[in-house]
């Protein structure tokens, strides 16, 4: 069953007199439980594609369906609700609120969902524990008191706290060293094993190999869309 569907989606940006065609007529379907990597060179339209999937931007033409709901027909309130309930975002630069504790950062989507403070914080602590951050030890720390890897874990906890249908991650390891990158990728893998659908945007083949399906994008078009067979852990090759 498709969690996310793009149907003949294209996106044009107007810059002065010129227009940039960032995405051209893409049709793509992502099912529940998948772990998809979107790869491609810089400027190929990966981030644009992810913003369209996450309802952060509207396509110039075509349709975006989240959980079989057609997004172009929705008002702001319903879009906000879809983003809140069905989608979790992870960003390259973590995007945590400064001067706000880790627990409060994680609880933010719950507050927007209308939770009371105490239940929201309790749920946020659970999510922190799931991503390997001890909520009692680090929960009250502010982002500037955490390492990059820890900040990204907090951001992932925030993405999954509402138990969304899909987590969209744009270059989540782009700002991390190789050891931390492995930790974060392992975290994604284990979350996926527990049932979370993950779409991960990256330009590194090494990162992409952790996924079970790789969609490669070039000039706004899907160049290939292949399943990955893991034969021997993360070092496994990519099969056609």
């Amino acid at each position, binding site marked *: 069953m498709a969690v996310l569907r793009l149907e003949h989606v294209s996106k044009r940006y107007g810059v002065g007199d010129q227009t940039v065609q960032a995405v051209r007529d893409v049709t793509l379907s992502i099912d529940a439980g998948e772990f998809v990597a979107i790869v491609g060179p810089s400027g190929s339209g990966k981030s644009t594609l992810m913003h369209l999937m996450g309802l*952060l931007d509207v396509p110039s033409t075509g349709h975006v369906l989240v959980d079989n709901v057609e997004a172009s027909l929705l008002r*702001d309130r319903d879009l*906000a609700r879809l983003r809140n309930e069905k989608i979790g975002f992870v*960003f390259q630069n973590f995007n945590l*609120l400064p001067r706000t504790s880790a627990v409060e950062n994680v609880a933010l989507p719950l507050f*927007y969902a209308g939770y*009371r403070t105490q239940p929201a914080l309790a749920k946020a602590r659970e999510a922190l524990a799931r991503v390997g951050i001890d909520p009692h030890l680090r929960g009250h720390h502010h982002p500037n008191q955490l390492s990059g890897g820890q900040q990204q874990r907090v951001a992932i906890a925030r993405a999954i706290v*509402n138990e969304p249908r899909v987590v969209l991650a744009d270059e989540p390891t782009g700002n991390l060293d190789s050891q931390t990158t492995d930790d974060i990728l392992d975290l994604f893998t284990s979350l996926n094993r527990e049932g979370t659908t993950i779409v991960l945007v990256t330009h590194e083949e090494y990162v992409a190999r952790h996924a079970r399906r790789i969609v490669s994008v070039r000039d706004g078009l899907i160049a290939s869309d292949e399943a990955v067979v893991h034969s021997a852990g993360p070092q496994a090759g990519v099969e056609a």
Partner: protein
Amino acid sequence: MRLNRILRTAFLGLGHNPLRTALTLLGIIIGVAAVVALLGVGQAATASVTSQIQGLGTNVLVISPGQSTENGISQGLGSSASLTDSDVKALQKDSALAAVAGDVTTRAQVVYGSVNYQTQVEGTTPDIQTIRNLSLAAGRFFNTVEANHDGYVAVIGSTAAENLFGAQSPVGKTIWIDGLAFEVVGELASEGSSGATNNDDRILIPLQTMQAHLLGGDSLTTIYASARDSQSMTQAQLQVEATLRQAHGLRFGESDDFTVTNQATLLSALSNVSHTLQVFLGGIAGISLLVGGIGIMNIMLVTVSERTREIGLRKSLGATQGSILGQFLTESAVVGLLGGCIGIVVGIVGAQGIGRFLQTSVPVNPSSIWISFVVAVAVGLVFGVYPALRAARMSPMNALRYE
């Protein structure tokens, strides 16, 4: 998002840059304090003049030389000699009047021992005591005999007494007014000062003595008359006018060369002036509130553009346009609210300070407190709307990509 969260977020935003928040607050504080203090000062000024006018008594007519304008204020130019002793004599025959007193006021040099100072010297008759309702702190008023037969006697106001005699009792002492010796026979009870004028800084002497030996001539500065009671004021006023027109030989169609005023006409003239004063002071205060509001708008615009990425993030986490709007509106409303509260306190303290400086009490009207408080919050909201709308309408993707 729940209300407590929205408030928390607003305070978090305000705490982000405390100095900037404080300066924005200052704009509102000054505006609100100005409203509270200036309206208080306006009221104090009005109250002070009102109490002076009310000090006249409800049945007193004040007749001054010179033509009147429509609203009862004397123009008083070029006709200063139109009242004389004979007018007083004519008026004393009027049945509607209980008492009439002529009055000449001048400033003169007064000497006692080594003290030498200038004060207001008023020549008048004993009737003034009942008309103006003057009470004595010590001694007596000069009597009719002294008044009509060159009595060199004086009744002294409390401030003048203090200036000349210090702590000593003035009664029985001899003072020199423009080189003539007068015996002080009484001291007036203090009427209290109101604003800039001091009714206690004066010396009363018999009118006849003053005209014969100090000034010469028989012209008067003012004639005070009292009606039998406050009901017969209109009748008394008409009679005064008729008598004086006849005495001055004015023909039909010629306008009066004197002005009759009473408490009621003075109060209504005052209410025009005080209304203008209130509008004027309120206007100044309003402008400073407006400037404070523009300050809020300015800072909120800066805040919104500084926090563009945060807005994008919040939208990606499920914030609606409404909750972003609410977040920033709450921030500016809190500035208005806090500024309003502090401004009211500053305004009250300021009003007391001004009151001490002017030596009157400056009232702080509860309604001006409420109005300025509501206006401050409204200013916060109104000037916060545009920046908040800008934040709310931002495309989440553009906001996230914002550098």
